[in-house]
């Protein structure tokens, strides 16, 4: 249990750092999602299942959905597909 705890915490730290270092916005949202999911598992291990449910629904679900829709709105997804990685984030 202790081992799993440490593993999850390390995973969260690595995720948090890589979210800010990733050039591709799409990838960083996916990493952010997985960080939220790991966080919800940690909430369960801390015996607060209501927080875990909220974290999974809001953090991993709705927040990332809104971020995806925003990426679509500013046409960041298709530009990244065209221009390989990283360079297509600024609009037009």
């Amino acid at each position, binding site marked *: 249990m202790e081992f799993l705890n440490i593993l999850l915490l390390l995973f969260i730290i690595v995720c948090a750092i890589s979210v800010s270092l990733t050039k591709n916005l799409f990838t960083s949202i996916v990493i952010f999602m997985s960080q939220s999911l790991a966080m919800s598992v940690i909430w369960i291990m801390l015996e607060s299942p209501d927080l875990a449910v909220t974290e999974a629904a809001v953090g991993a679900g709705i927040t990332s959905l*809104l971020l995806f829709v925003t990426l679509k709105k500013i046409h960041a997804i298709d530009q990244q597909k065209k221009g390989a990685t990283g360079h297509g984030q600024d609009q037009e």
Partner: protein
Amino acid sequence: MAKIRNDYEHSWWPRLLQWLEDGSTTLDDELTDEIVESREGHLLPSHEDVAAHEARLEERHRKTLEDEQAMYDHAHQWSKTKGARLVDWIYRIMAVVICVSIIWVLLQTASYLPPFGSPDNPVNNEVSQRYIEKGMEETGAVNIVAGMILDYRAFDTLGESNVLFIAACSVLILLRVSSDKKHPGSVHQLEVEADDRMYEPKNDMILQHITAFLVPMILVYGVYGVMNGHISPGGGFSGGAIMGAALILYLNAFGFKRTERFFTFKTFKVVSVCALSFYAISKAYSFFTGANHLHSFITPGTPGMLFSAGLIPYLNIAVGAVVCCTMYAFYTHFRKGDM
């Protein structure tokens, strides 16, 4: 009354006004003067004169343009090399300064915190003791968290629900595409909808079948979370978020036409406002009777029953409705600026 100076015509303000009005500059004036002077000599200017003037005009025009170009180039070059470097430098210095000051403030705050786990910390007072010992007896909620946030600290939760509602309102203000009721298919709206459907198939069979199977279960789980908020872990916020997520999934699979049958902007308005006002009014009644030691018809009931714990289940439903509507409104407005 202010006197107009004799040389008013030549001061900078009227010159600026004149320049703004007809765009003529002193250079143009000189040119016209020259032409007028040359006209005074001969009554009719010869072709050579006109040609020479035109050539001189051209020359001046070209020179001015060249000067301007040189000036622009110089300015542009500056902004590209030295200016960019200067701004970059300032940015870096400011970033470091702001970072260090924030770190300093936060560390200063942290140094004033009481030591962790010490028994005479301000956290360890009689409030938490009372919540733990008498919470179930006083509120009737088995889930002590629900008893705290919806009974002892119900005012706080009202503020949170209102924050969500205000957030939805700001999204409405920022992202709502103005829709004309008389002409439903305006160009702008159609554009937004076409843009919205750019990357996804309209009727994806796999997604639709899975959604038809999953959405009822997710919805029921959300309703369970809301209704059982005072008995088991869960409550208005998490249950409402789950219901909102289920609605968003349904919307993604079946499109706006299907969801608009049961969830429009009017639904959002009515549900949010009714839930918030029910929360405010019922809690006002409960606070009023509680503070004045009046008899209240709200009783804790038998702990563990579905309809017990006084107002808590109803408040949970209100909060869940607000959260669900807000999440759905966020999503629809991010997508096409309408519901």
